[in-house]
């Protein structure tokens, strides 16, 4: 009744399904083909007239027609990013070969990451409130914009009644959500967890809020470059289907890999800036959790903030763990922009595809500063076996999360 009780605390957790909506590809195969080929999806903002703002570049998901995927009844009550999320979740479950109606409802759970909720929907309703009055605010506002909307809507769509959750930790949220989903599978509170993040706030209100971070680039996303000038925001993300390895094998699922380790820390407060930032400690915790050493890691998917001091801090953390040019590093998000709650979830999906195909996708449009001492995979994708990948993600507030995925043998 309450899910399997057989899973032990140390049960291996594998990823059996992926769904992707990204600015350089709608769906996993389009995304992966574009990413390996170094084809990006960043361009002038199309969702609103951004010409009057200091930056007008975004990564928008191409070719997404909600009506092709979702019933008309859902459209008035959903933000654009929730529509993307619902479709991404459908694809992830289908990829895992899961038909929810064949499962017990309490064996299926959902944990998503969120950053700003359905911000575009929220802008419309705030505009209605302030231009016309409270009576013009939609009945859907109470949930269409809020942070929990994707978990709620996905659970309803697939009758998933198991453990649920929503974490908000900016760009780090995607990893924190997957870690929370992994806990549930490990503890046996759920047989299957859908997790990750799909996000986006490409609307003028979202733009103004993001500009306030002083981290958006006016002229392109060039992490680790001497001319790094910030990042380009984007929309989309990924969902992953997590299950315990044993039962997944028994039902004939084909895992992409397993979630082997996770660590999460927070940077010291402003008066403690002489203390070391938390990223290295997050990496160490993740390696420890996975029971591996730095030498076991074949590639690092960097957070790649695109802001000089943040790039330097990340390079220093990677260098401290792996040594100078000690491990290939990549940041394929140069092709998508940074996707907030979707960012790290997409990186995990990317890492699992890298393991599947033995390809490290490139970091595009950037010329890394030699001082950073990074072996950044630039130009073309690098073909090499990938058994273990480390994914890094940081949030605006000082969140540092690290997640390790490994080949499932």
């Amino acid at each position, binding site marked *: 009744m309450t899910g399997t009780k057989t899973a032990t605390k140390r049960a291996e957790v594998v990823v059996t399904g992926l769904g992707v909506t990204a600015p350089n590809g709608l769906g996993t195969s389009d995304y992966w083909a574009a990413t390996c080929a170094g084809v990006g999806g960043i361009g002038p903002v199309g969702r609103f007239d951004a010409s009057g703002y200091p930056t007008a570049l975004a990564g928008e998901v191409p070719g997404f027609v909600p009506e092709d995927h979702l*019933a*008309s*009844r*859902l*459209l*008035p*009550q959903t933000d654009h990013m929730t529509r993307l999320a619902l479709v991404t979740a459908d694809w992830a479950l289908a990829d895992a070969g899961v038909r929810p109606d064949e499962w017990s409802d309490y064996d299926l759970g959902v944990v998503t990451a969120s950053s700003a909720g359905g911000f575009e929907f929220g802008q419309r309703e705030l505009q209605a409130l302030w231009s016309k009055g409270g*009576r013009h605010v*939609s009945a*859907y506002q109470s949930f269409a914009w809020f942070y929990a909307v994707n978990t709620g809507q996905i659970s309803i769509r697939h009758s998933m009644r198991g453990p649920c959750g929503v974490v908000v930790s900016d760009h780090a949220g995607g990893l924190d959500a997957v870690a929370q989903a992994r806990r549930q599978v490990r503890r046996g509170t759920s047989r299957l967890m859908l997790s990750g993040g799909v996000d986006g706030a490409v609307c003028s209100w979202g733009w103004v809020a993001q500009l306030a971070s002083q981290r958006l680039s006016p002229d392109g996303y060039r992490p680790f470059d001497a001319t790094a000038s910030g990042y380009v925001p984007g929309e989309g993300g990924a969902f992953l289907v997590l299950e315990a390895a044993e039962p997944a094998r028994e039902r004939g699922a084909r895992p992409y890999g397993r979630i082997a380790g996770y660590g999460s820390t927070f940077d010291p407060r402003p008066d403690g800036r002489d203390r070391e930032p938390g990223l290295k400690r997050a990496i160490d915790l993740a390696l420890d959790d996975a029971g591996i050493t730095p030498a076991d890691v074949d590639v690092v998917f960097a957070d790649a903030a695109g802001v000089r001091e943040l790039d330097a801090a990340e390079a220093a953390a990677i260098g401290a763990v792996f040594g100078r040019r000690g491990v290939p590093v990549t940041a394929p998000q140069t092709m998508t922009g940074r996707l907030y709650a979707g960012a790290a979830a997409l990186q995990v999906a990317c890492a699992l595809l890298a393991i599947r195909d033995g390809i490290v996708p490139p970091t595009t449009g950037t010329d890394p500063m030699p001082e950073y001492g990074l072996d950044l995979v630039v130009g073309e994708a690098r073909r090499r076996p990938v058994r273990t990948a480390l994914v890094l993600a940081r949030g605006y507030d000082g969140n540092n999360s690290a997640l390790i995925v490994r080949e499932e043998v």
Partner: protein
Amino acid sequence: MAQLTIDDLRRILREAAGDVQDIDLDGDVMDLEFEAIGYDSLALLEAGSRIERAHGITLDDGLITEAATPRDLLTAVNEVLAEADAA
């Protein structure tokens, strides 16, 4: 003030809550229960607030959610509209 017709209601429902599957909203739905047509209380509240705004009226709590069918809803709303006219 103009009365609300079934066509008005169809249009408002579509705007407020989208089109339903499996049922032809343009067919004879006057006496079908909203639940059977596929519109829940939330959809009706959104439709109700659109009616309120379009006609400058206030509908009592429950008037919307207690209406089981389009006919019930039209009757109740048109009574309010008639009262507003008389006032």
